[in-house]
């Protein structure tokens, strides 16, 4: 389960940054890039908190 969550989080980060490279190279338009970034944010924030918490010791100082 943890692996699956990490995979989805990773996909979220890919959706955050890869479309911007495509915009820069003329591959896609700005609107599609903005939508992809929003979808990436959704995937990241819906999955990352769970496996990041599982990593343990996350709340320990510092």
């Amino acid at each position, binding site marked *: 389960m943890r692996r699956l969550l990490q995979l989805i989080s990773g996909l979220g980060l890919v959706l955050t940054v890869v479309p911007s490279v495509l915009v820069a190279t003329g591959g896609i338009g*700005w609107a599609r890039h*903005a939508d992809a970034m*929003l979808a990436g944010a959704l995937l*990241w924030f819906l999955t990352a908190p769970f496996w*990041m*918490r599982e990593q343990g*010791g996350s709340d320990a*100082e*510092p």
Partner: protein
Amino acid sequence: MSTVTERLDAINEFDREPVPEARLQGAASFAGLYAGEHVAGTEFVIGPLFVAHGVAARDLFLGLLLGNLLAVLSWTFICAPIAVRTRLNLYWQLRRLTGPYLLVLYNIVNALMFCFLAGAMISVAATAIGMPFHMTMPGLSDRYPNSLGWVLTVVVVGAVVTVVAILGFEKIARVSKVSSPWMMLVFVAAALAVLPRLGVRSPGDFWAVANEKIWTGVPMPGRVHFTFWHVTFFAWFCNMAMHIGMADMTLLRYARKWQYGLFSAFGMYLGHYIAWIASGILVALALQQGSEVAPGPIAYLGAGGAGLLAVVLASWTTANPTIYRAGLALQTVTPDWRRWKVTAVVGGITTVVALFPALMMRLLDFVALYGLLLMPMGAVVFADFWLFPRLGLEQHWAERLGSRWAWPAALAWLVTLGACLLLNLLSGVEIFFLGLPGWFIAIALYVATSYLQQRSVQSLPATRIPERI
């Protein structure tokens, strides 16, 4: 006054003992911590302000490279070695040198600075939250609230941030940890996505566009022209309170080795290099289009809704712990007040401060002032730890003497600030450069006044010096 110092001690009681071996943290914790802490909402302001100050592209890239390196070295060679040897936070280390009364004053100044810093972050968040409601955005030269919409948005954001801080900022700290890798990528992606609109069609175009359209070397009206040295010193000293001011002893006392100070490079080169460059690119497009230059609109320009979310999260996650820390510091002078009440008052002060866009739009000056005000106490800690044994002076003299107000530390602090003010007024040395001479002045003053004090006290009968307070 003794009630105040007792309360101050009680609040810090948990951290009174040196960090035990079992609680030391590994390298990854520090890399993550520094990366998270230095990618904040204010990065959306600092990058654009460099553009406003007319930095040339070469000066920006090289100045940030050198300035951030100097900051990393300051953490590594000045702050971390003392932190890992004492395993104490700055509060307890300072208490041994300043006495409790002077420490209360230092705490109040620190708390006020925290309020201003959190205020700037609330202003930044308000520019993102107000955008969907077509709020009139503050401009780069605005000082006062410019619309009712701005006032209402800031008040709502300030209230929400304060309520969350009252409920406990631990959950927000978790949100901060989760959002930091994503946030960094938002900065990069937003900047990449606007490059074609600035005329960058291939990587080879970038440098020419950077010089002609982004960091042109021409300041906006009313702004001082920033050179390579301005950029270097700003990057070095924008966290002056943390490294040579020693506030990060509180974090680095958990490091296994002093070399972990090098992990501050993750914060510097991600947050204070890439993010500042990225936000500079964004504001250049906004200026070219004649659109709004506030953090929310420029983030939207590059990343749409995700950009707005990043601005809100970046500001909110940093404003919350800042308000919480300010509340802790101020709790010492509000006897019998519950924590929630102190935090509410701090939140109120912070919200009022946030109403004035001048703070956000003059953030470079404020950050420089903030570091400068607190830095001399870091110099005091440095001198006591490294120089006193070599000069034959007693360390922790205030503690040995049972002094409640240590004049050497007080003079080193206040006279250094006075000297810096004179350097600024009489010699025209800009605030960004004052930290360096200020640090040496503070060291010299503290050593000299401590020498005089210790020589005079040692000539008295030994019974006048209690072993411990």
